[in-house]
């Protein structure tokens, strides 16, 4: 007997962190209490993408979307909606502009403007039940590939689709597969790169958590096309939930005979093992990843030879990222031409972006290539919160660059982003508003790459350190014009001479910010001021006595929190900052509820 209602409770990392398991347990208890367990099914799904608003739940079949649930909302919700059929408005999403709640998931622009291919099953299936994946045409592409297509035909279909690697560089997937197919050497391997290290990007985590079978199926099809027998999923150990779900999915696939010997009775053999990362960003680089899988330090090696010729254990290896593999089954199911009609001339299909930073709707979005930044930021992302001015968007993580407001109508594809000095990367999009200092952003990313550099090649090891030094000097207010020139010179040479992608792209954040926001650099150097008031050493803090007394009644939070005890004042009286003691940490600004602390 089917259930009349399915409650799709999100159990992605973000929602779990927001206590979604408690909400789910409360729902199950409450439903059992009311004797509805035969009518209503509670399903835990993977990440929904709208992580900023968790815990989330979608009620099917109506498609009612609830957000920010807590266990104490549950009795009321069950009573009102599930029993009496009255959706509960106060738990719905309220767009900041209109202030009227939007009950249906598809009414929310965040969801309605998206086109889901890689994320096709998110929120719709329980990732720990293979049957639900199969119900959504899961493994149909595999069956088609195994029974009706030759490896060559699979390859052709992928080529026609125009799919390009979603990991960052955008190498055509079909061409990559063909290299491996033609390469000499046995056995061949397929690898799934799940070492998503870019700060601010989490689509791979989301895909593995919410739909692990899509990745497995993609790898199976790829393996069939190139003639591989073994596959490896390399996944960050920082994603425990993803690792766990992947393990479950692999086990279920094996039980169903979708992995192992003689898959679907077609004589095709393939199996996948999991290799957990041990914490090194550079392992996202293909050759370093292979090195890590082989049990060595994740150091990249010079190419050529490419992995297609000399990969895992020296054998031809096809390495694609999680999102790319997840894109494969729909392409085989619907045909390459179907996929190729989405997107732009050179960049086909859809791309998942993680929208974070100073934006209203934080989360994962999958959109067709060629969509403009403006559409993503304003229509889907809901714009910058707090009425602040949009300044720039950082794409591509530490390898990418900052794209300024002037280029907001830039249609997004691999080429246009590269032209703007940035890159697609794995799809991180960090939105920055007027309160973001671009020099600080550059310094932040450089600190990241400097810390993550493996240290093998001299330019990356020494160059990132030196650039970081210079940027730190500038943000501390000790920079000179010579520093600026040296920074640019070093950045260019590091980009040109480094051994791997980490080094060659490490200067991108510096170069793009220098290109688009040179005035901010000049302000730091010439006027010793940080226009966004982020670089603390350049700020001075004072407390507006009027606001402090009138609104805050001298509450004293700043005095208590000040680490240097540099704030003085009695209760109900105006507080003041002693500039000689102040270490400019800015804690007072953050803790003051009344915006009485003025940064200058």
């Amino acid at each position, binding site marked *: 007997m089917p259930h009349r209602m399915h409650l799709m409770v999100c159990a992605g*990392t*973000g929602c*779990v*962190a*927001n206590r979604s398991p408690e909400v789910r347990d409360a729902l199950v208890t409450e439903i059992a209490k009311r004797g509805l367990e035969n009518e209503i099914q509670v399903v835990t799904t993977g990440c929904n993408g*709208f*992580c*900023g*608003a*968790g815990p989330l739940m979608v009620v099917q079949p109506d498609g009612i979307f609830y957000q920010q649930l807590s266990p104490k909302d549950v009795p009321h919700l069950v009573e009102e909606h599930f029993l009496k059929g009255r959706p509960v408005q106060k738990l719905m999403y309220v767009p900041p502009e209109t202030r009227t709640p939007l009950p249906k998931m598809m009414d929310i622009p965040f969801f309605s403007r998206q086109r889901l291919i890689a994320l096709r099953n998110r929120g719709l299936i329980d990732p720990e039940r293979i049957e639900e994946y199969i119900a959504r045409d899961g493994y149909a592409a595999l069956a088609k590939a195994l029974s009706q297509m030759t490896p060559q035909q699979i390859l052709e279909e992928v080529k026609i689709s125009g799919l390009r690697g979603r990991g960052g560089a955008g190498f055509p997937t079909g061409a990559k597969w063909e290299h491996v197919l033609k390469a000499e050497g046995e056995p061949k391997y397929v690898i799934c790169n799940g070492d*998503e*290290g*870019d*700060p*601010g*990007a*989490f689509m791979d*985590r*989301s895909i593995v958590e919410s739909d692990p079978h899509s990745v497995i199926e993609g790898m199976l099809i790829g393996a069939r096309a190139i003639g591989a027998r073994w596959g490896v999923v390399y996944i960050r*150990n*920082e*994603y*425990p939930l993803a690792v766990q779900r992947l393990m479950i999915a692999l086990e279920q696939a094996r039980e169903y005979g979708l992995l192992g010997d003689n898959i679907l009775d077609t004589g095709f053999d393939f199996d996948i093992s999991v*290799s*957990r*990362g*041990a*914490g*090194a*960003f550079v392992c996202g680089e293909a050759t370093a990843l292979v090195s*890590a899988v*082989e*049990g*060595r*330090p*994740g150091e990249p090696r010079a190419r050529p030879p490419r992995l297609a010729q000399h990969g895992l254990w020296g054998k031809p290896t096809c390495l694609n990222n999680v999102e790319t593999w997840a894109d494969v089954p729909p392409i085989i199911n619907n045909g390459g031409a179907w996929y190729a009609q989405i997107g732009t001339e050179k960049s086909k299909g859809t791309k998942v972006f*993680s929208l*974070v*930073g*100073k934006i209203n709707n*934080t*989360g994962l979005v999958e959109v067709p290539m060629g969509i403009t930044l403006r559409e993503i930021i304003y229509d889907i992302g809901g714009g910058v919160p707090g009425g602040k001015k949009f300044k720039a968007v*950082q794409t591509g*993580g530490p390898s990418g660059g900052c794209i300024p407001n002037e280029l907001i109508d830039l249609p997004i594809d691999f080429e246009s982003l590269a032209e703007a000095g940035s890159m697609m990367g794995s799809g*991180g999009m*960090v939105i*920055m508003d007027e309160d*973001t200092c671009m020099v600080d952003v550059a310094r*932040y*990313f450089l600190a*990241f790459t400097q810390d*993550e550099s*493996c240290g093998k090649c001299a330019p990356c090891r020494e160059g990132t350190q030196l650039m970081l030094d210079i940027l730190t000097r500038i943000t501390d207010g000790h920079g000179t014009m010579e520093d600026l020139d040296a920074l640019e010179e070093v950045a260019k040479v590091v980009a040109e001479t480094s051994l791997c992608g980490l080094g060659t792209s490490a200067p991108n954040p510096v170069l793009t910010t220098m290109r688009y926001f040179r005035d901010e650099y000049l302000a730091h150097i010439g006027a010793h001021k940080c226009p966004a008031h982020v670089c603390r050493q350049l700020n001075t803090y004072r407390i507006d006595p009027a606001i402090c007394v009138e609104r805050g009644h001298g509450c004293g939070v700043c005095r208590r*929190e000040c*680490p240097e005890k540099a704030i003085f004042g009695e209760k109900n009286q105006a507080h003041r900052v002693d500039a000689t003691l102040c270490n400019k*940490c*800015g*804690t007072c600004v*953050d*803790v003051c509820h009344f915006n009485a602390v003025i940064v200058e």
Partner: protein
Amino acid sequence: MQLETVDRIIQQHHADKTALIAMLQDVQSEFTYLPQEALVYLSRTIEVPLSRAYSLATFYRAFSLKPKGRYSIAVCMGTACHVKAAVKILEKFERLLHIKTGQTTPDLNFGLEEVRCLGCCGLAPVVTVGPDLYGKVMLPKVDQIVKQYQKQGARDAKT
């Protein structure tokens, strides 16, 4: 030092040389660090050069050659968290625990680290304590977190 534990881990991985990193991960989570004795024993048993094990142990961030705190506090320094002033959260922890990032309190109760993106950017700034994750951490919440685990630590010590 329980070399039997290391033995058990080796057997779980069928003494497969290529699973060295996975074994180190298990040793690390068993002991909260990689004891020298364990590394020497491991490399000898599965016949990989000790120098390889040592270089892995120092290359990867997940490994430590020194004991870590019972409660490992990790402050996310991803982009989203950075933009939302995670560094102040970190500094507050440093002040409260009287240690620097990367160190462990003398009573081995707390370790403080910064981590790269945990992939929960929607909840920035994010802090994890062991397996527990805290999102949208504001400065006053830092006090609460530390107090909570100090209490828990005292309770655990009694039992």
